[in-house]
């Protein structure tokens, strides 16, 4: 799990969790080993190494950064130009095995005309090879799970955008796959529905599934994700837990910490003496500081010491840029802008 700057060649990504080198294929990870995809002369993704664990993983990046390509490679819908991919040990060119364990929700609104929500799910389950009785049971389970029971026998063509999004989610998970690949699943959902769907993702992940999501909505990425993969121009520029990724960037982008205390002036005088502190800014109400530091650990040690010695009394301490939005801005923001 790591972050890197983008370079013309393969970006070096130092390991955070101690795993050196490319990921090895295992039956409990989704692994990409030196994977590239070129569409003719157009780059899709380049030299990607990943090992995605269970939980919710969000792909973040501007339009054209390679998120959908990564998902399509995972689902075997496009073949890599080089490199190897395994989904829990299964190659994407083994559809009979792969799609028993994987469900995909595309970003397109593409429904066969004249079908009801129930028929839509039922037909696709039959394509999976399930018999009538089992299909019927699983369709109702999935429909109930996405809260569409009332609308199940209405035509999909008459559904609202949010309802279509939910029925698409239902079709991706109705055959009870272990891996869910969801391209922009929150698009078009109102805040209430978003909250419900996010809760559903959490439930699915809590059961041990792999939920891979692409999203443009950065403030929700923090809430949803166990880990993120940040992409730009076909390169993975960061992967892992947001805090770990942010921690790797302290040299280039000093960490910002908001401190509210009784004596901010005294605190400012103390922190200015530290060589790792880059900048200190006083709040407008003069009751707090925004400290930029290249070494968060040493800064927190200092803060702890000052409190224990009674130099200051703390009201609150919070990282100001340890979220997906800040990391995205630092790594991609200048060239992306889609978020």
């Amino acid at each position, binding site marked *: 799990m790591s972050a890197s700057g983008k370079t013309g060649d393969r970006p070096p990504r130092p390991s955070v969790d101690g795993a050196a080198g490319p990921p090895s294929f295992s039956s409990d990870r989704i692994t990409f080993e030196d994977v590239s995809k070129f569409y003719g002369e157009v780059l899709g993704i380049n030299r990607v190494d990943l090992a995605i664990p269970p939980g919710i993983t969000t792909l973040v990046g501007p339009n054209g950064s390679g998120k959908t390509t990564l998902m399509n490679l995972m689902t075997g*819908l496009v073949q890599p130009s080089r490199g190897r991919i395994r989904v829990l040990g299964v190659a994407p060119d083994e*559809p009979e095995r792969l*799609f028993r364990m994987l469900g995909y929700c595309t970003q397109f*609104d593409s429904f066969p005309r004249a079908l009801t929500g129930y*028929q839509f799910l039922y*037909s696709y389950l039959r394509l*999976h090879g*399930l*018999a009538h009785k089992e299909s019927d049971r699983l369709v109702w389970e999935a429909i109930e799970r996405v809260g569409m029971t009332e609308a199940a026998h209405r035509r999909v063509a008459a559904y609202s955008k949010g309802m279509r999004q939910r029925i698409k989610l239902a079709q991706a998970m109705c055959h009870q796959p272990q891996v869910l690949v969801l391209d922009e699943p929150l698009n078009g959902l109102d805040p209430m529905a978003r909250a419900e769907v996010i809760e559903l993702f959490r439930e699915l992940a809590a059961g041990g599934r792999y939920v891979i999501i692409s999203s443009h909505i950065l403030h929700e990425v923090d809430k949803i994700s166990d880990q993120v993969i940040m992409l730009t121009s076909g390169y993975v520029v960061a992967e892992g*837990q947001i805090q770990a990724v942010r921690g790797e960037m302290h040299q280039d982008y000093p960490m910002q910490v908001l401190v509210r205390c009784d004596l901010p002036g005294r605190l400012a005088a103390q922190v200015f003496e530290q060589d790792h502190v880059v900048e200190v800014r006083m709040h407008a109400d003069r009751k707090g500081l925004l400290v930029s530091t290249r070494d968060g650990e040493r800064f927190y040690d200092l803060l702890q010491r000052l409190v224990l010695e009674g130099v200051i009394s703390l009201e609150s301490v919070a990282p100001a840029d340890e979220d997906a939005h800040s990391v995205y801005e630092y790594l991609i923001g200048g060239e992306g802008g889609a978020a």
Partner: protein
Amino acid sequence: MAVYKRTYQPYQGPLTPGWSRFLVIARQAYRRVFDSRFLILYLALCMIWPAICAVLIYLRHNAGAIAMFKIDVARLIPIDGMFFLRYLAWQGSMAFLLTAFIGPGLISSDLRNGGLPLYLCRPFSRAEYVLGKMSVLLILLSFITWIPGLLLFGFEANLEGAAWFRENLFLASGIFLGSWIWILTLGLLSLALSAWVKWKFVAGALLFGVFFAAAGFGAAINEVLHTQSGNMINLGELVRTIWSGLFRVPVSTGLTPENAWMALAGIYVLCLLLLDRKVRAFEVVRS
């Protein structure tokens, strides 16, 4: 990172045989077809000519009816290769129109809406998808071509006796093979055009164009160059040449059955290449 406990239960029940899954697509399509009153009416119309043929066969063998209607037996159409060739030619025309209604919309809407990934993210291949879509036409067209054709043959054989059946068995194989050649030609062409232009009405117009414009162009070549080689691009003449061979009826298309088979095989290969290129989950668009 959160600690996850594997609590979900994957489906581990029985599965239907892989070969039968393409029929799910046909079932889905028939739901739409039979929602259309126009198409139901048209399918009923398609049965009129086989019914007339059955009446003609019946009349030839019913002395009472011949006497009652004072029919000159010599003027009744003989039940031979030409009879079944005409039957197939008429039913083939009806099959063409039915294909023009249904075929162009089979793939185009999925491709235009990006719907292919929905099918292909199952244990379901591109070939099965095409087969599923084509089976919609294969089954419907069978019901208006070789199935009633073989029933007519059986009817005639029943009235004529075993000797006629043995002598004319080639007619039954002609009906069956001739129908399938036509059905495959229509199915492949309509699906390939549907995948190529991704627009139902344009694909429908192109289907007419392939048959009639190519026939006109072929006729122009024949006229200008004083040859009959122009018939090589006339699909109707190609199929007529093959049918005439199957029913042992001489026709003057200027083509040998071998040439017609080769030209038709070339068209099939072109259609399959087009389908292979276009029916993909994601199409690469080069700017």
